[in-house]
């Protein structure tokens, strides 16, 4: 079965640079979530979209922005990168909105900021 696709899988950036992470949800899934997992930490919710509209916002820095496009894929844009942004970034998708739905996670993008 098709899974959530994330690209790139690995990314190395310098401080103050920008990065764009992409997420392609499971076909027909209309909801996308972004999570950040620091080294040895649990995943932290960043932001979510349902039907191309932002549905919830968590601990996402103002330097980050995201959107969901008409084909339901999502992009997380990160500017003025800091060393502390180094983490594993997960995208998850679900069919329908709300916490009664199972969220399926992608393999993650590992971002290293030097």
């Amino acid at each position: 079965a098709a899974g959530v696709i994330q690209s790139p899988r690995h990314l190395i950036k310098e401080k103050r640079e920008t990065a764009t992470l992409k997420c392609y949800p499971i076909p027909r899934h209309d909801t996308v979530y972004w999570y950040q997992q620091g080294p040895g930490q649990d995943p932290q919710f960043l932001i979510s979209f349902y039907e191309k509209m932002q549905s919830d916002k968590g601990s996402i820095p103002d330097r980050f922005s995201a959107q969901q496009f008409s084909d339901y894929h999502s992009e997380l844009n990160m500017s003025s990168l800091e060393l502390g942004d180094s983490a594993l970034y997960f995208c998850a998708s679900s069919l329908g909105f709300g916490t009664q739905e199972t969220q399926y996670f992608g393999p993650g993008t590992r971002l290293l900021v030097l």
Partner: protein
Amino acid sequence: SQQGEEDPQALSIQEGENATMNCSYKTSINNLQWYRQNSGRGLVHLILIRSNEREKHSGRLRVTLDTSKKSSSLLITASRAADTASYFCATGISSNTGKLIFGQGTTLQVKP
């Protein structure tokens, strides 16, 4: 963690033994989900239990939920070396938002 704690933080057992991991949370929930993560890799969904359910089974997995104690447990029976991973519980706290709040995870090592 924002929501709660997992216990134990690390568990080491022999193949064939059972492994039990516990999760406590702070707020009311709609559901609780368990995920597995192999070292530095993606999160694999294991099981979802709704707030009106008390127990759920899936293969070698058994999950219980006690909303009065705000706690859940994950039991893996007849463990295998391939079960070695980190296990996270995640709570869905509201039907108005899909966000999950994760616990700190339990690292399970199953020795062959």
